């Protein structure tokens, strides 16, 4: 589904990613871990098409398409979803309106009929229950006045409504209390299916207590230095990132 080959990425002339190779197949859940500043959030944003980054080398194939040539909205319509680390606020635009607009632009792209307000609200209510969000959030402006946890739940809600093929979670677990963490995890697990892939970018192992990854990769200084299964996450938690740096150096 996703093939990253020798990816180099810079921002304002500073190279952040220095040759990433990663293959994600359908049905797989990959966790990208690493210390602060290792480039893991950069990876998430580049895949989603954030305009601040320059790809200097390498390529990314997504479902047999050259992902890097696609505009961000086209990537989204092709099924790439990023749950943001810091979701932005959009004053005056209700959550429901925003999400309906997004869903219908995606549906139009796929040649599907637009959902009318009634059908959409039905779906939305259902999904809001799953992430334990009060229905009043549907009419509140996007992320405005939401707590950190509410914003993250809102990201998961959007993910469940849009049903992406490739979901990228950028530090969705940071700043969450245990209850919110469980809600986020159950949302992700619900999305998990044989024809979808999930990429979880995280600093800590704790989210992985609730979402079992098939693969764990450790990113240090713009390179994947270590890959393994879920056991790797536990080792990291126990020994810290210094251990990876040392073993990578040796």
């Amino acid at each position, binding site marked *: 589904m996703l093939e990253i080959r020798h990816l180099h990425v810079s921002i304002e002339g500073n190279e952040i990613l220095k040759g990433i190779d990663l293959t994600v197949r359908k049905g797989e859940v990959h966790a990208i871990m690493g210390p602060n500043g290792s480039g893991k959030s950069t990876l998430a944003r580049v895949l989603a098409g954030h305009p601040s980054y320059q790809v200097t080398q390498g390529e990314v194939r997504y479902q047999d398409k050259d992902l890097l040539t696609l505009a*961000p909205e086209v990537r989204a319509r092709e099924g790439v979803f990023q749950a943001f680390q810091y979701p932005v606020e959009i004053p005056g*635009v209700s959550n429901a309106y*925003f999400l309906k*607009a997004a869903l219908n632009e995606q549906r139009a792209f796929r040649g599907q009929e637009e959902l009318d307000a009634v059908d959409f609200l039905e779906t939305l209510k259902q999904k809001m229950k799953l992430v334990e969000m009060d229905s009043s959030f549907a009419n509140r402006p996007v992320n405005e006045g939401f707590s950190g946890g509410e914003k993250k739940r809102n990201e998961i809600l959007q993910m469940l409504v849009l049903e992406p093929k490739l979901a990228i979670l950028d530090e969705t677990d940071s700043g969450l209390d245990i209850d919110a963490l469980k809600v986020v995890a159950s949302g992700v697990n619900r999305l998990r299916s044989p024809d979808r892939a999930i990429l979880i970018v995280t600093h800590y192992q704790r989210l992985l207590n609730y979402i079992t990854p098939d693969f764990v990769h450790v990113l240090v200084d713009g390179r994947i230095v270590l890959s393994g299964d879920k056991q790797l996450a536990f080792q990291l938690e126990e020994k810290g990132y210094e251990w990876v740096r040392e073993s990578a150096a040796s």
Partner: protein
Amino acid sequence: MNEAKALIGGEYKYGFVTDVDSDTIPRGLNEDVIRLISKKKKEPKFMLDWRLKAYHRWLKMSEPEWQNVVHPPIDYQDMIYYSAPKSITDAPKNLDEVDQEILKTYEKLGIPLVEQKRLAGVAVDAIFDSVSVATTFKDTLKKVGVIFCSFSEAVRNHPDLIIKYLGTVVPYGDNFFAALNSAVFSDGSFCYIPRGVRCPLELSTYFRINSAETGQFERTLIIAEEGSYVSYLEGCTAPIRDKNQLHAAVVELIAMKDSEIKYSTVQNWYAGDSHGKGGIYNFVTKRGKCIGDRSKISWTQVETGSAITWKYPSVILQGDDTIGEFYSVALTNHYQQADTGTKMIHMGKNARSTIISKGISAGHGRNTYRGLVKVQPNAQGAKNYTQCDSLLIGDRSSANTFPYIEVKNKTASVEHEASTSKISEDQLFYCQQRGISEENAVSMIVNGFCKEVFKNLPMEFAVEAAKLLGVSLEGSVG
């Protein structure tokens, strides 16, 4: 005239050239021109006298220069002051005959055909013959005693009301453009809501400048008697022309005890092209007077068109416990300029005023909020809340806020909040990452920014306004 014919299409293609030509008077302004206008409108003598007084006052005045806009000098002798209302047979009767530009605009706005027909119906009535607007509603309104007719008709049929109220809110010598309007005004709307009547319909006028090189000077007068209520809607469009055209209107609102007037405008005059060529100069004086206690006047405006907008819909809060409101969205894209705001003059006791202004600037747009909150010495317990927000799109647009506050009574409470923000790359990216195109994202963010104003518009107008913003913003990103 050929251009006008080409734009209007339909019946115009096959004749009426003479009729149209004969209805237009020679360019330039002098006493004879004013006499001619008055004669053509079959006006009583009092009206002509008033026009002439205004004209002589105007001759002694000069154009205001304090506003934050730039334009080449206007040659008032190179303008046509009267292009007669077309006869009823000239007016388009169905959709096929309607100006292609309006059709295109509505097509672009995505309003479904049935609705389009209905809107076109309203528009057409108003554009070519304001008399027929009144006819549409006349029977229903007559039953409850509401008078809704063209200004010319009111001058002929209700001279007592005109004599009593004309110029009582905006005197003929109020300002340069008001004086010019008072001298040469061609038509407009007149509404009279009798005591205790809640007007059963939204009254609506759709203004359109149609002929070339003609200035448009319409006048509107609305009188709400004790305990009455009226909601009035005003829409405006103009065809695309290379030359700038002047639109200098005057609106006067009079609210008696316990009455309420809600006045909504969606202004979409031709804005000029993307290089700033052509477009309407919209220099308008709008003012309301809350004469009676507990009366209320509310202005809501969405200004998306015109090359230059210069208008300050204001409220004089003369009675006690009166309420004045001003909700405004002004959008400037390409080379458009807007200097707009309001004046809230507190005279009565415990009067309250609210000002919510949203300015959006894109391209080389220049957007200025200018507002005055004045509390007179006897205005005990005056309360004002002002909020001015500016939104910038791109790096070449500008926004300014000039709030003037004059308080002469210690019991007054005046609050002012202002903010300037930009649509951030992160906001756009967030929307795009969900599959929303950049253009739709900008439109959505801007509409969200304007929500507090839009919610004060009547339903259909709110929908139209939101779509209009989307169209007006085209080409503002990328």
